[in-house]
Every structure is written in structure tokens, then in C-alpha cells.
């Protein structure tokens, strides 16, 4: 498994990176952690003529938590997410999910930005960002624009990111209430058979808000507005949870693969969603 040849670029700032992307058009690809892209290049399933390595761009490695807002640079690795005590305290959901991504070596390299920008429906961070209602910062020739994670994904590997843009940051409000990330997979290192992120805020026994998002159950991550709505304002008893699960399942469209047939995935999705909601409520 040997990749085709390419030109290597290692810009020191975002502006230079964008410049290279602009100059090379769709022949260029951004390299973050590389653990999705490099295997595809080695299998010669991804043709890349210019590889733009972001590792030297210090500004992409910052994490800030201030005034109720969290901003994370695109080159922050899963390992850094897990290791950052302040982040773990403010957004325990992020740490919980990051620990369920791949394996230790991959987490040292894999970045939040790469995971988000790649557009692979099997990646965990996209659903998570939708659950958190994150805003993605996209740097391009005309500066940085913001796109909601919930609006970012258009299809498998198709996103709102243009060829001359790159994801530089994610920003979201420090979440309130309880959380859970439930993921069923075959083994460590595997993608999800079904995964669900849940954030639920309770107020005196009544659900004030609920955000439910799912991973690898459609060709994009799925944030289920109706599942959240089914819980909001209720006591979150068994029937309410069941309606939320039904609502969430109505939004997904899994396909058969080695992890199993559609009926199985739908069933497991139902279980995983229910467990995520139940656990989020319990910790709310």
C-alpha cells in the first residue's frame, strides 16, 4: 500500500494554507492527523497532488473556555481533548466521546478539525458538534465565515467547505444539564454500528431542552430536531423517551455493511438512542 507522489506543503499560518489551497484548487488536500486521509491515499482511493500539512499552525491548536463559550482549534487532537482537565470539566461529553474514537495512537494524531471536516458519516465528532450546536469557523480567501455544524454536512464526504477553505475552529456554548455518548462498535478501532449523543437539561423534573444527534446511521450525521422536541417540556418518563426514540429513528436511513443489515442497525440505533437519552437524563 503505497501512495502516489505529491508535493508537500507545511504552511506556518492559516493565510498561507488558504493561499496554497487557492492556488492548487481541488488537487490539494489538507492534512490534519492523517489517519483517515493517509490510508485512503495508500489504497490510492484518494488522489492528492498537493498535501497541505497544518501541523505548524500554532493558532489551530488553541483551546479557550471563556464567558460560557468554548472554542477549539481544528488541530487539537483527540488526545488533547481527553487530556485537557478544564475542557473535561466544562464539556465532559467531549471527553467521553473522544475516548471512544479509534485507539490511543490514532487519538494522539487525530484532530477534532479533521474528524469534522472529512465528512465521513462514520466519524464521531460531526454528530457530537451537531448535538452541541457548534459553529464551525471556515477560513478562506475572503477571511473566515461561520457555518453551523447542523448545516455543514450535505452527503457522504460532501460538506459546505469549499476547495479553497479549511475548517479552523469550532465554537459552542458550554452545555448545561446531563449528557451521554453511546456507541456500539465491533471492537476498538472500529467505527460505530450506531452511536448517539444526547444533551438534556432538566428543570425541576421537566425537560427544558434536549439535543439528540446520531453517528453512522445515514450518509451524514443526523441531528434530530423532532427527538429533542419530543422530550422538551415533558417529565421524560418511559413513554416520552419512547416517542423521542421513534422520532429519532424516523430521521435516519442506515445502509447495510459488514456491521449488519438495516433492520439490525435500526434496532440497535433504537437501543443506543434510548440508552443515551436515559443516561443523559440521569446525569442532568
Amino acid at each position: 500500500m503505497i501512495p502516489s507522489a505529491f508535493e508537500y506543503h507545511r504552511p506556518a499560518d492559516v493565510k498561507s494554507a488558504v493561499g496554497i489551497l487557492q492556488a492548487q484548487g481541488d488537487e490539494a488536500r489538507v492534512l490534519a492527523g492523517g489517519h483517515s486521509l493517509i490510508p485512503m491515499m495508500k489504497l490510492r482511493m484518494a488522489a492528492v497532488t498537493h498535501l497541505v500539512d497544518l501541523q505548524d499552525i500554532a493558532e489551530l491548536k488553541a483551546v479557550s473556555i471563556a464567558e460560557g463559550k468554548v472554542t477549539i482549534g481544528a488541530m487539537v487532537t483527540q488526545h488533547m481533548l481527553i487530556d485537557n482537565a478544564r475542557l473535561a470539566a466544562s464539556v465532559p461529553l467531549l471527553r467521553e466521546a473522544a475516548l471512544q474514537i479509534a485507539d490511543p495512537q490514532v487519538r494522539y494524531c487525530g484532530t477534532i478539525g479533521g474528524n469534522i471536516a472529512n465528512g465521513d458519516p462514520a466519524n464521531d465528532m460531526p454528530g457530537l458538534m451537531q448535538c452541541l450546536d457548534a459553529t464551525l469557523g471556515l477560513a478562506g480567501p475572503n477571511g473566515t465565515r461561520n457555518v453551523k455544524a447542523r448545516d455543514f454536512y450535505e452527503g457522504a464526504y460532501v460538506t459546505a467547505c469549499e476547495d479553497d477553505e479549511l475548517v479552523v475552529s469550532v465554537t459552542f456554548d458550554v452545555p448545561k444539564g446531563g449528557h451521554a455518548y453511546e456507541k456500539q462498535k465491533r471492537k476498538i478501532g472500529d467505527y460505530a454500528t450506531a452511536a448517539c449523543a444526547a444533551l438534556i437539561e432538566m428543570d425541576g423534573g421537566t425537560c427544558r431542552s434536549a439535543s439528540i444527534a446520531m453517528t453512522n446511521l445515514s450518509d451524514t450525521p443526523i441531528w434530530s430536531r423532532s427527538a429533542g422536541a419530543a422530550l422538551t417540556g415533558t417529565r421524560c418518563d418511559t413513554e416520552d423517551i419512547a416517542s423521542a426514540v421513534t422520532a429519532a429513528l424516523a430521521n435516519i436511513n442506515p445502509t447495510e455493511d459488514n456491521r449488519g443489515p438495516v433492520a439490525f442497525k435500526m434496532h440497535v440505533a433504537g437501543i443506543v438512542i434510548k440508552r443515551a437519552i436515559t443516561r443523559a437524563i440521569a446525569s442532568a
Partner: protein
Amino acid sequence: MNDQTPTRVERSAKLKGLGVSRKRVEDVRFTQGKGNYVDDIKMPGMLFGDFVRSPYAHARIKSINIDAAMALPGVIAVLTAKDLEPLGLHWMPTLAGDKQMVLADGKVLFQGQEVAFVVAENRYINADAIDLVEVEYEELPVLTDAKVAMAPDAPVLREDLAGQESGAHGKRKHHNHIFLWEIGDEAATDEVIANADVVAEETVYYHRTHPCPLETCGCVASMDKVNGKLTLFGTFQAPHVVRTVASLLSGIEEHNIRVVSPDIGGGFGNKVGVYPGYVCSIVASIVTGRPVKWVEDRMDNLMATAFARDYWMKGRISATKDGRITGLHCHVTADHGAFDACADPTKFPAGFMSICTGSYDIPVAYLGVDGVYTNKAPGGVSYRCSFRVTEAAYFIERMIEVLAIKLNMDAAELRRINFIRKEQFPYDSALGWEYDSGDYHTAWEKALKAVDYDGLRKEQAERVAAFKRGETRKLLGVGLSFFTEIVGAGPVKNCDILGMGMFDSCEIRIHPTGSAIARLGTISQGQGHATTFAQILASEIGISADSITIEEGDTDTAPYGLGTYGSRSTPVAGAAAAMAGRKIRAKAQMIAAYLLEVHDGDLEWDIDRFVVKGAPEQFKTMTEIAYASYHQEIPGVEPGLEAVSYYDPPNMTYPFGAYICVMEIDVDTGVHEIRHFYALDDCGTRINPMIIEGQVHGGATEAYAIAMGQELAYDEIGNVKTGTLMDFFLPTSWETPTYTTDFTETPSPHHPIGAKGVGESPNVGGVPAFSNAVHDAFRPFGLKQSHMPHDQWRIWTIANDLGLHG
């Protein structure tokens, strides 16, 4: 010089002989990254070879254009079948009496098949050149199911066999048929079954999987045109056989070929066969005059070299009302892929599948195996088992469970009733084997007690009740398995590979100062031969294992042997080591007698020395004897102290064991958890308990993988669906269970030290234990049979089909 001080206990301990958990000598280099595996070999001017492979499972090749590839700077050659044909090397014989394309000759028969061999200055140029070879294919209808391959109108796969009504193993009854191998008395079996109180019938599928050692297959071929010598380094589990095959194929005289197996990163059967990569590397080295390295990548490995299993086993088992088994009928449809390249002893085209009567006293039985061609890769190797023994053990252990259901009987009790009894050994099985020794009842009772079997059954009943009351969604399965292995192939009278008897060998040379080197015909792939063979010798010749170097794998220096697979190293080469040691001792006795001025018969062996009977202060240690053998004239005795033994085993050995798996199953997600896994092994005399335990852990883990998810899966047009380690299930440390190991010790009566072999038992016994646990969990709800691998969706499907999802 006499060694006065140490006590017998101290002297014995110093030997680090049989029964000692001696630390491995190999580990010193492996832990420091100083192993020497084939891909570590670098030679001046070395080129890299790699294949253009077929993307199709069945297609005619209309044209191959190599011009663009040849034009790429750094490309030295591109070989196709046309280039090999004048040498007669475009096809090669397989170990199973069939022939196999080295490079696609007019058509391809499986995805990943070798089409052209590109030789270039380095891997990178090679990969670029492969992309530039243009092959035009015309797709043909694909057969991936052995059961439909025999339909009258099925596409013809092997056009080269047109008109050939018989093959290496008798008559062919269809254009996709390879052989029918039959053993036992079918008429008598049918009659017993027809008149039985109770008959259970079931089809048991043992899916296709792959040994997938962490190191893939590879070689470095180097033709020295000046001296006419070919050196071939490679991942060979049987280096001597490779040398002979290489000589027969190439016409180079065998003395001019040196085959070397360096350190091997796991084999598990994958590295027994002879692959097109070896042949092409040799040819390329001859053509270019430079060394050529070929190393598979992981996808190549999974797609093209030696799969395992793919047996559809249809069984009928009969019994009396009270559970005495009266007969067993088994018919197998065996999917051999595109070429019959199974690595079995010649006379056994279905290996030792005829051990399928298992550990039970079954008076009459029949086995018929139909080998069939399909559009899948060739292979059919013994993946961590003796030849087809894991298939046999899985079949009988499933049939026992199915019969227990039919009889409404506890499956542990059914086994107990039918075990061959201790006093019946040596036992002649209905399918022709002579089981050398065993004590099954003792092992079984020990195992059941160790896991508190009765308590587990009580807990399971409570769990089922709780499940029915809606209090839990988890079921409990107790997986039972009792297996008898048949290893140590084997007696030359009935075991050969390409005509070469399956003896093995050991040559030992004692140095003047009392240390030694021993060479054997086997080759370790992680089993620790350098450690354990030295222990066998230490106990035989009284020299500390630490002072004995073990060497294997270099055909220029090692005596001829048939290699390491099928748990044959300890039973055959281990026996040769003991016998060679005894020859050393016999000569040493003569020397000692001369030195002590007594008759030979006046001496007795005592740990590390010969002692004059009744005069323990008069003795000569082996070190002293060795010194004397080189330094003084001893009348009537040749100088030096060396011996060689070629050991032809009188029988196979029959290790056995009892494995029990306790498994929790989440009915809604199909997720399982192994709560307890207990493994009792009886491998006869235990040479190194630490290594035995390690072998059990490893084999049980491979069994776990196979039973619970590991599959070489194809889609309907013959694409491999599990070609990387994302999808081909190798469990990590996180999923892998922990094991409790235990043992009984019933020495083999015919092996010089009573050892039987253990490396493969845990796979043979483990697979049914895991699978039976899944089945057992659902038995209370009416499950009879469900095929492996029991991955999450398949377990979920069982529950769904049984209506457990409400």
C-alpha cells in the same frame, strides 16, 4: 574435575530440563527489536517485486499491456504468464495434487489473483508501475457458493481440466468437482441410524476465515549466477519442502538451493503453502541476476494466500433413548476455491476430518467429503489446528449439543455417557484411528467442578425466568466443549507431503567443553523451539538447556524435516531430539565406562552423569565425557560426540481437553461478554508450563476471534468484503477475554518423553466452546443451530428470529 558440591536437586535444577518454566532465549533479541524477519533482509542491489492482481473473481483476460509500466524509470521487468510459459512455470503443482496458475493464464479465477509480476528498484516505483499495467478483462459469471457450484449448469471454472474425469484423489463427478473422499461404512451407518430410537440432524457450517499472522508472507530470492546457487529467504513453515519443490520446479539441483526461514512473525498455517510470489521472485532473480524481495501487504495476504475452513458439514447422529450414541453420518461440501491447494498429507484430501467421532465411543460412522471449486482464493490450510481437526471438533461438538436437545438431556451428561473410557485405550475409532491414550472422564469432572457447572445451570434457569418476567434483557450461555486432537503427523506409512514421509529430525553436536548445538527440521514461528527443544535435550543428555543452542530453518545446515504446522514439532521433532539425545548418551556411556574402568552395564545415568552402580562417588559428568571424547583415544570408539535421529512416529498423538465458556448476551444489541473461560488441556508430558499456558491463551484468543466475528467474507460477485483489519476481526486487548488454564497429564505411551503437542488444542477446543455458549444461551428459547461467526448482527438475528424482540 569431578563436580562434588551440588546436590541432586541442585544439579537437576541447573539443567532447566523438562517441566521447568524456563524463560525464553528468543525474547532477548525480540524485546530489543533485534529479530530478523524476512522484510528486515537487505541485500546489495536488491529489487522489489509485486503483483498486478485481478479485481475480478472470474474473468477472461483479453490483453495485458506492459509498455507504460516498462517505460517508467526504475522498472526492471514485468513478468506475465507468457514469460513463464517457456520455463514451464506459468502453472505450478499444489501440495494437494492439483495445479495452480502462477500468473493468470488466459483467465482469472478469484479476486486478488496474480496477473503480472512487476520488478522495480523500490517499492514506490513498483506501486506506480502496477497502476500502469493495463489489463483488459471480460467478466464471467461468478460462483462463490460451493453448494451451487455442483449444479449441472454451473459455469465451468477450471477449463484446463476439461475432459479429466479423475484427479489426484479419484473420480470427478462434475466439472467443478475435485474429489469425493469417503471413509467408514456408509451402509452400516445408514442402517443403524434408520433403526435408532433417536436421530438428530443438522447442517453445521464452519465459515471461511484466514490465519492472518501479523507478519504477512514474503521472500527474498537471490540467484548467484557465478556459482549457480539459489538462496531463498522466506516465511516458510516447511523450509525443506520448499527447497525440494523449488528444485523440482526450477530444475536447479537441490544442493544448489539454500532455503532459509529467518524469524517468522506467526504462521498459523498461512505459511505452509508455496505461493506464486516465491516462484516469481525466483524467476525474477534468475532473469535480472539481482536479489528480488516480495512481501505481501495485508490485503494481498487476506485475499490471496491460504484461507482456512469453508466446510458445509451435514450430520446425522443417532442414539438410544437413554443417550448412548449408536452412529454418526457426516457429509461435507468443502469449498477449496479456485485451485486445490490444501496443505494436507497426500493421502488425506480432507485432512484428519475423520477424527469427527471426537471423544466418543461411536460404534459405526461414515464420512464423505466432496471437494469443490469456486471463485475464491485457494488454500484450505490448518489455521492453528491439525489438518481439518478444528472442523471435525466443531462438527461433533455441535452434533452432541443438537442431540442433547433432541434427547432433552443435559449436554454435559450426554458427553459423560459417551466418552471413550480410560480402559478402552488404545482405542480404535470407527473411522480408523488408534487413539493412543486418554482419561476423558477425569478431565471432564475436574472441569465441571472448577466452573461450578451445577451452579451455572441453576443461575441460567433463574436468568431465563427473570428474562421471561421482563426483568433483564441479558441471557447466560454455558458453552461446553470436549475435544480430542490428532496431531504429530505423522507415520511415514500413511503420511507424506509430495511423497516425502512426514518424519522429522534432530542432529546434535556436543562441543569439547560440554556445551552443544542441536539442529532440527522444524521452524519456530513463535512457539519457542529454541527454548523447549533445549529443555528436552537437557533432560536427555545432562547438559544445561542454557548451554545448548537450537538452530532451525537453514536447509544448508539443518537435517531434513517436514516443518512446523499441525502441532507436529513436539510429537515428531521433539521425539527426534530425545532419540538423538539418547544416542549421545549411549556413546557417552561407553566413554564413561572406559574412563571409570568398568563395564558399560555397571553404570547408571543420574541427571547429568554416569555413576558406577553402588559407588556414587565414582562418576563422570557429561562435560567430562565430552572433553574426553575430543581429547583422548578411546579404544573402539570414534572421536567426537555427535548424533542424528530421523524419527518416524509409530502413531499420531491425541491431546485432549475440556473447555467451558460462560457468556452473557445482550439480546437487544447482540453484544456479548465473556464472563469466564476455563481451559483444561491434557498434552501429555509438559515440557514448559509457561509456554503451554501462553499457547493456550493465544489459541483460545484465535478461537474467540473465529467464533465471534472473524470471517473472510465475499459478496455475490466474489469481492472480498473483509480485506483490511478494519473488517477482518482481530480482537484487541480490550475485547479479548481472560482465561483460566488447568491441566491433567496423560503421557503418550509411544512418544519417547510422552509429550503430545499443545499449540493448536485451544483453537480446536475453543471454537466449539464459544459457539456452544451462544447456542446454549438461546437453547431455552428453541434455538437448535445458527452459523458462525457470532458477531453482533448474527446474534441479534437469532434473538429476532426467536421472537425475543417482542
